[in-house]
């Protein structure tokens, strides 16, 4: 009889559908990433926090991108108005002004169409819609190029085709960066090709051609950069706000993931027992069901025994993507639980400031380490009611001069502190006076 692997539980009960094996490498990678994120975050996948994080991390439209896209559309509009005015002023200079005019007309119709569809269907752009936009923009560029061919001076006659580059600005907020980058590259190459083919390349014309190609490709590329940084900002802030909820947590907490697991185990046990009771799982049990029962019992026992041993700080660090990667905590006596909400807030803020923007983080080497305790060491008095917990930070993330006033005022909220720098590592020892018998 086939043995069921030990981790049957995590796959659900027999009879429930087990996820089929991944078919493509991409699928496997995404699934792996998803499971890893869930492990690292310590949040159940169905919670508001985990859902928001997933949404913020998805490529394409995400939290807050809609408003940013509206701003990009305003830029596109300004450029289009400027381009049309520029084109109309020079109308008489064109050999055949009607083809560029047709390009502008197509551009305007497409812009109105995309605008209306976004207003109707919300702030998202499907792959098909994006492909359609690219095709229309391709037509606009082609019409304009054919129209200005007789001028043999792309830099001073291209108008609607330049606007096509700006049309990618709002798209950059709604589609994954890779696709937009490809569109920018194609457009840039089209301009280079057209310039080489239509315009005699001399030292007189080249500067204007370079400026024109830059005008077409640089703004959407910068838009990609801004959107990328904006998304990072949103993810960091979301992470910070979610972790902040630990400040109000009791002295010891189960944590959201463990709590979710316990509920899930109880439900799995209930289903199994129900199946046994109503005879749908006949006795004596099959090997598979017996193995499920065994692992359920083991996991339940572990959850019940180990439930409430962790402090808010442990949960905060493990739940956070940013802090979890770069902060290590040593708190053998679980002293973090004694800190008041204001002190906890100060401690978290200090960590966020010391971690910085997390760019220099190498895997496996924490940037900041925090040690709480031991209680009763020299210069940290203990009385009947209160004790002075030494909170020691060792930070190599951000150099001391780059730590702003926010970091120092956050440290002040933990308690009086001394700081020193040794071998490029910033040491801070804070005297955190806490109640010995916390009410939380």
């Amino acid at each position: 009889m086939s043995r069921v692997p030990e981790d049957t539980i995590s796959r659900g009960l027999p009879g429930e559908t087990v996820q089929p094996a991944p078919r493509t490498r991409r699928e496997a990678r995404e699934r792996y990433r998803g499971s890893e994120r869930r492990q690292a975050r310590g949040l159940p996948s169905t919670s508001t926090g985990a859902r928001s994080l997933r949404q913020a991390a998805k490529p394409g439209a995400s939290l807050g991108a809609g408003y940013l896209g509206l701003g990009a559309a305003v830029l596109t509009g300004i450029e289009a108005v400027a381009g049309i005015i520029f084109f109309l002023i020079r109308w008489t200079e064109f050999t055949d002004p009607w083809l560029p005019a047709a390009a502008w007309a197509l551009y305007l119709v497409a812009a109105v169409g995309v605008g209306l569809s976004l207003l109707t269907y919300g702030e998202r752009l499907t792959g098909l819609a994006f492909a359609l936009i690219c095709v229309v923009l391709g037509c606009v560029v082609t019409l304009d190029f054919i129209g200005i061919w007789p001028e043999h001076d792309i830099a001073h006659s291209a108008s609607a085709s330049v606007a096509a580059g700006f049309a990618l600005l709002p798209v950059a907020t709604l589609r994954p960066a890779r696709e937009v980058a490809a569109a920018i590259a194609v457009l840039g190459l089209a301009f280079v090709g057209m310039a080489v083919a239509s315009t005699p390349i001399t030292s007189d014309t080249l500067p204007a051609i370079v400026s024109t190609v830059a005008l077409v490709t640089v703004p959407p590329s910068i838009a990609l950069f801004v959107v990328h940084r904006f998304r990072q900002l949103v993810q960091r802030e979301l992470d910070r706000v979610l972790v902040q909820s630990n400040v109000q947590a009791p002295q010891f907490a189960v944590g959201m993931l463990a709590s979710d697991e316990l509920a899930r185990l109880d439900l799995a046990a209930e289903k199994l027992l129900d199946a046994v009771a109503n005879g749908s799982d006949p006795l004596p049990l099959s090997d598979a069901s017996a193995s499920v029962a065994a692992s359920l019992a083991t996991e339940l026992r572990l959850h019940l025994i180990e439930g409430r041993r962790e402090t808010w700080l442990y949960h905060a660090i493990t739940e956070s993507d940013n802090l979890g990667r770069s902060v290590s905590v040593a708190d053998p006596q679980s002293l973090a639980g004694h800190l008041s909400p204001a002190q906890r807030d100060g401690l978290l803020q200090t960590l966020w400031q010391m971690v910085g923007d997390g760019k220099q983080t190498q895997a496996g080497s924490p940037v900041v380490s925090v040690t709480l305790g031991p209680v009763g060491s020299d210069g940290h008095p203990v009385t009947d009611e209160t004790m002075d917990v030494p909170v020691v930070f060792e930070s190599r993330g951000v150099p001391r001069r780059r730590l702003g006033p926010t970091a120092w005022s956050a440290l002040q909220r933990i308690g009086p502190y001394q700081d020193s720098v040794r071998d490029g590592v910033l040491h801070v020892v804070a005297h955190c006076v806490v109640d010995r018998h916390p009410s939380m």
Partner: protein
Amino acid sequence: MDFIAQERDRLLRSTTRVVGIVCALVSVVAVICALAVPVVPLLGGLACIAIMIAGFLVFGWNASVWWTALILASGLGALALLLLGVDEAARPIIASAVVPLAAGSISAPLMSQRGSPVGLGLTILAGAIVVVAIVWASGSVLAAPVTGALLGWVLIAVVTIWISRSIPRVARRIYSIGTAHRAERQASETEAQRRQGARLLHDTVLATLTLLAHSGVGVSEQAMREQAAEDARLLRHLRLGATPQPQQSGDYSLTREEESPLGQTLESVKQRFGRMGLEVSWHGTGQVLLPSNVLDAFLLALGECLENVRRHAGVGEAHVTIVHDNEMVRAMVTDSGVGFDLTHVSAERLGFKESVVNRLREVGGDAKLFSAPGSGTTVVLEAPR
């Protein structure tokens, strides 16, 4: 709001840096392509652009007004050197080559002047000078370089306003997610405590699951079914948010009163093992009031001992004697089964230490084990009253 404002400024500064440096480099390429600028002003202009790029790099993490001034001065210097260094004929060509510098690089500091009126004034002044210079160099207000420069400044201004407005908006949404998350965390914590608090229920569920893990061998099918149905019902009650309180025959008294009578719950333990085929005989008084956490630990330990008897002793009967004085309550679990040599089977291996001794010690009690091969086993459990 403090943190997000800091992040916003950082985003604007890094955008300033990228726009400034990219546009300056494009201009450098265009100017060199023109081959129209004599060597001395060309080198001077390139040096100014190099200083400007260095200024942008520093500006990325130090937004002092002096760096803004340096960037603007070196940018305008480069513009002046390049436009004045060429003759009349080549000037419009150079004007179109420096459009990225004029429209992007010099306007970029506009993005990071929040809270710095001096820097903002300087930048706007520089903008005016740039437009005048480009108009003069290209010889017409309607020339393409002028449109380009003006457009650049307008676009940068719109970008600045829009990014500054987007961030508080998204911050509000993030904070409302945070509020929802905090409520969820509290609810989940309360729920976890309620579930973990239902210790007795979990003890009986664990006992049943352990039996099922051995495919329910050694227990009659009917008894197994009844037990499973009962446990599933209790779990369902727990899931639906009620404190499980079975109606029939005082089974499993799971009330969380401060003190619970021992006798009532002992009866439930007896019934449970009765169904599994182990007859438990009680001796001594059952009417002892215990604090609920002590009662939980005591009953758990007792249940574990009886489970060991059922599984290993090879007999169908166990005796439990309960005695108490003012401070302690003691239970003696005896069987006349096969027994074992304590030196051969360590207590840890039986799970005895974890499940019995530690649970009792947590509430200030203790447990002792006596056995020898062929002469049965006796366990003494102690718990404070």
